[in-house]
């Protein structure tokens, strides 16, 4: 990816939140990020409501068979360049759902089926703290 195309992405990453079968704990922590206490708008991070406007996909939860095609479809709808952030232990490595009958695989495996060059950020924790998520996003956007 050229330097030019991601130059301003660091300054205004718009996030889209998608739950893929988690226990809702990470989702609540994501919402905590957006409260006045943490105020991610200081860094230009903004919650958007449609994948077409998104730069970062916040995915929480192990990917169940039911949601797998939906997650891949949403990923295809996001204009590139974009970053996929796996929030929580389940999204990173399936956590306690490993080898469960209803789970298709961790987020990176599912998304690599449609785009092998996707960019991932892993934020482990059950759930990760809001500070961790902000730090992970900042680090990821400096890398690309």
């Amino acid at each position, binding site marked *: 990816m050229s330097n030019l195309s991601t130059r301003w992405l660091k300054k205004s990453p718009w996030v889209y939140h998608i739950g893929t079968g988690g226990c809702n704990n990470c989702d609540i922590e994501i919402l905590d990020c957006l409260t006045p206490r943490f*105020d991610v708008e200081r860094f230009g991070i903004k919650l958007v409501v449609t994948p077409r406007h998104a730069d970062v996909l916040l995915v929480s939860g192990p990917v169940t068979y039911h949601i797998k095609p939906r997650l891949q479809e949403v990923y295809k709808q996001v204009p590139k360049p974009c970053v996929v952030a796996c929030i929580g232990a389940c999204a990173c490595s399936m956590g306690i759902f490993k080898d469960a009958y209803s789970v298709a695989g961790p987020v990176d495996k599912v998304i690599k089926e449609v785009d092998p060059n996707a960019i991932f950020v892993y934020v482990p924790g059950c759930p990760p703290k809001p500070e961790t998520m902000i730090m992970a996003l900042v680090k990821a956007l400096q890398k690309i």
Partner: protein
Amino acid sequence: MENMALYLLAFLVFPGFLFTSTFGLVVSWIDRKVSALVQWRVGPPFFQPFYDLFKLWQKELIIPRNAKGTSFILAPFIGLVATSLLATIIGIINLKPEYQFVGDAIVILYLMIIPPLAIIWGGFSSGNPFASLGASREIKLMMGYELPFILAVAAVFFKVGSISLGEIIQYQQVHGALLNHPSMLVAFVVSLLWLQAKLGEIPFDISEAECEIMEGPFIEYSGPLLGIYKVMMAMLHVVCPWFLITIFWGGASMQGWGILWSLLKFIFIIVLVVLIKNTNPRVRIDQAVKFFWGWVTLLALISMILMFLGY
């Protein structure tokens, strides 16, 4: 020929596209910062709207398979051109009231309907059910808010006895701002409510309700086209208050200390809009139309009657 080049310069640079869009992005920073302060936050940095815009410019542009490509792409540009034209006309007449032409206020009223129409067109052509829903709500809302506003502006026309913006400004230079009359104060209140709906701010952001129909008409727009819509909305945040200042509040002078006074008037209106936005919940579309066709139209009629009684 030279005149033509001057008009083109006015359209593209000052007071048209470049000036209004830059100022509009600053206004959208004011909007976000004031909202943050209301919510006890720090808020975004000053250049945040510019960063957002540059980033959108570098993103991929996706045209959905179900969309009608041509109108999907054209709609934002039409809105942008209409808004630039509005800014040019209002700006030039504010600078030099003698540049008026017959019925320029009517032209402005018509041009102001084009940006919402562009949003509606783009929404319907994007082939998304949520976008169609948002676009149809925008139509209803537009029918709601235009009626009282045109009545309010008609009250101004009758008071001054002219339908040209330049003469309205000159009248105010001689007789003082129209706001000093009770009838015009009522009309100004009507116009402020119109402004809230025109700019798509809460409580009247029904057509692009984020958590309900996901930005409505903008749902399928991505990258540069979304950026153009953002610029258009930012410019509307400049142009509409500017028009209200022109017809009610003695115009926006651009000379000496007048600039500061004009800026203060402008920021007063914008902050008022942001405060209303931050302290109200969203209404339903039927409530909004009832509100505009009921109470607000009544207010506009009261202003008209007061004006004919000579207040």
